[in-house]
């Protein structure tokens, strides 16, 4: 009877998680956690068009009475905006010990997990092997006028990417690059998923998207070549996912979920199903995939990028005509 009561109480336990990582990849991991812990997971996922900022702004809008216990973010930059607003409940997970220091906050405000890289998706039927683009700067090359695409930098991971480029090149160089992009007829898609569609269908020759978009296109048999840009220059942008504990009402369950999301099985699953790049040494890369150490990556100060991202917004809105 006591065990029955306990089971009943256990069933009533729940945790609320907001995610900006694709539902198709994360839902199975959340189900695994439910099975293992007996804690019910109630999730809010982002749509492709509002990726990362939709749930982020919902967390901000709900600040008066926080609903979310955990934010599983597609990048570590947006959580900085929550840290700045005092909406994060710092938690140093025991699982964080296995994550390299560059991919976690020392104060436990966020901890990184399997990462994505920003890649050039190239349609092989439209681009000859000897003409393969090698740098994000090729998006603005006149040779490819009207044949390239990026997602709207006001939303999604492209926001972080342009901010990282601004930190690497300086604001003026970034603005000049984006102006050239526009003049070059680069298509501004509503999402990375749409960039993938445009490249896969041959609508454009190549475009900028994420590792998971590339994996999905390859899985669908699209004639895609994947290029890690700027390997002979500043490096490719790597975006670890970030697990953040928030001020929602289920503190204990939130910590259990954070621990699980940073664990080997969860990271391994994300690597396997979404072609993410493992950060933990004890997680194997996906078949044909790479480890972070095998890629020349951009050197990023995530907190600084967050500041740059906010600073660039008014200019980006002007640039996008909004």
């Amino acid at each position: 009877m006591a065990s029955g009561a306990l089971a009943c109480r256990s069933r009533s336990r729940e945790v609320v998680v907001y995610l900006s990582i694709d539902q198709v990849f994360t839902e199975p991991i959340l189900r695994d956690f439910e099975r293992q812990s007996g804690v019910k997971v109630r999730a809010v996922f982002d749509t492709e068009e509002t990726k990362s900022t939709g749930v982020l702004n919902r967390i901000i809008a709900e600040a008066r009475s926080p609903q979310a216990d955990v934010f599983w973010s597609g990048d570590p930059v947006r959580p900085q905006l929550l840290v700045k607003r005092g909406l994060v409940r710092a938690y140093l997970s025991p699982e964080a010990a296995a994550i390299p220091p560059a991919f976690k906050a020392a104060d436990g405000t966020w901890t990184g997990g399997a990462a994505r890289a920003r890649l050039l998706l190239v349609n092989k039927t439209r681009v000859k092997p000897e003409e393969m683009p090698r740098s994000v700067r090729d998006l603005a090359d006149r040779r490819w006028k009207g044949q390239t695409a990026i997602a709207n930098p006001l939303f999604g991971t492209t926001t972080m990417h342009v901010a990282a480029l601004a930190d690497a090149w300086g604001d003026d160089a970034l603005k000049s690059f984006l102006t050239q992009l526009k003049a070059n007829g680069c298509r501004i898609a509503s999402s990375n998923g749409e960039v993938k569609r445009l490249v896969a269908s041959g609508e454009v020759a190549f475009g900028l998207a994420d590792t998971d978009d590339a994996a999905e296109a390859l899985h669908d048999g699209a004639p895609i070549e994947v290029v890690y840009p700027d390997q002979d220059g500043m490096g490719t942008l790597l975006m670890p996912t970030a697990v953040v504990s928030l001020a929602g009402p289920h503190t204990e369950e939130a910590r259990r979920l954070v621990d699980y999301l940073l664990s080997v099985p969860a990271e391994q699953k994300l690597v396997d199903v979404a072609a993410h790049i493992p950060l933990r040494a004890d997680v194997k890369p996906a078949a044909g995939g790479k480890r972070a150490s095998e890629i020349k990556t951009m050197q990023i100060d995530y907190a600084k990028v967050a500041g740059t991202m906010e600073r660039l917004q008014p200019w980006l809105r002007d640039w996008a005509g909004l």
Partner: protein
Amino acid sequence: MAAGLGWALALRRREEPFLLLAAGVVLAAVALVPLMFLGGELGKGDALRHAAHALSAPRTWALFVSSLGFATAVTVLCLAIGLPLGLLLGRADVPLRRVALWLHAFPVFVPPFLLALGWFHVFGRGGLAASTLGARLLFSWPGAVAVLALALTPVVTSLVAVGLQAIDPSLEEAALLVAGPRRTAAGILLPLVRPATALAALVVFSLAFSELGVPMFLRVPVYPGMVFSRLGGVDYAPGEAFALALPLFAVAVGLLLFERRAAGRRSFAVLGLRSREVPDLRLGHWRPVAIVFTAAAALLPVAPLAALVIDAARGHGFSELAQWIGASAWNSLFDALMAATLVLALSVVIGHAAARGRRGGVGLDALAVLAFVTPASVLGVGLIATWNRPSLQGVYGTSAIVALAFAARYGAVGLRTAAVSFSQGSEHYEEAAAIGGARFLRRLGRILVPIHARGLLAAWLLAVVFCLRDLETAVLLYPAGQEPLTVRIFTLEANGPGSVVAALSCVQVAMTAAVLAVGSALLFRRKA
């Protein structure tokens, strides 16, 4: 005790204004207070300065005017197709009219963004009818107008066709004695169906003006995109978004004035479905042309849906449905039915007051239209600010918040439909009952609702359909773990199996069609 008795007597005498007040309070709580909360954000930090800067920027107004042009073009195109088509499908001797109307109406059942995606599968480079010109046209201003017009034309067609069913047969019979079918259609039927046409124009314009998904996908900058960038971007600025929504007040008032003027002082046609005995209009030698036109209009909008069905079937999406659909279909139905019932309750009271020109009725009518044209993101963030409090978790943490949001956003659809229906009935019945001592609630229950049952059922059905297809309102507010089907389609659309997304879209269409079929059966059951 005497004071209590006096209050009860006063309440009985003033039932109508009290009921209107109660309905007004509910509507204000879901539509006005949220906007006021957002307005309060203007007082924080530099929000007012930024808002003033945004509103004084020429590009803001250029985009506003451009969006007005966009919505106008969509509305004109919808009317140009929907009006003659509604006439043909509602009254002419065209074969398989009901089937054609059903097929033609299918696009209304899904969020327009899905249709744009469907058209991409048809005209994109890798599409079923791929061509460079087709792809270029699709991703352009005219392409976006065409996609949205094809998605929304069924609103006009359906309202006109149903409106025609309700015209007093004797008027048409008299006209046919002295004129041919063409002159009867142009001179009698179309003018009589003006209230339904005006309502359809209002609905289409509002939906086209506030649409974000299709223009974003087809890369056409629109004003709601500017508002959304203040709420969906990194620098979350609800106060600025509210300021940018202010010009929409003018749009709402303009729309209402237009509708009143276009509908005319007196109304003849209604959304109720009175029985009719007039034979179909004979088109003579125009019949083959009309058949081709109706066939094209019925089949063309189905093309993107057919592309989705093919996609789902080819990729075994239907067999994987059980794995991905969860409780989302049930969530959709539950939210929509709750919301539509609330809309109906508000529509009976406010719609009646608006139709009879009662004090307050017109103002509440305008408020509902304002909420309809306000971008869903603005309304959603305002609702969060209003309802997300520890003491209101019984509402905010449950499906009730989605139902309230739907009622705010689509209240105008039910309310205007009910108002049009009420405006058809003679006021004399109510006056006679009032002279006989019947109080308002009694008149409502015994006279108004029974007489206008079909019009009110049509209002409820319309509200259900709009709530079922909604994405942009629900996505901001749905309680964790209880997403409706449209949201699930869009969250899975990101790298999810394309065939499953297509199959889920088919479920969305089938579910809405089933609800409409049941609703239609109820409508026609009374007729028998």
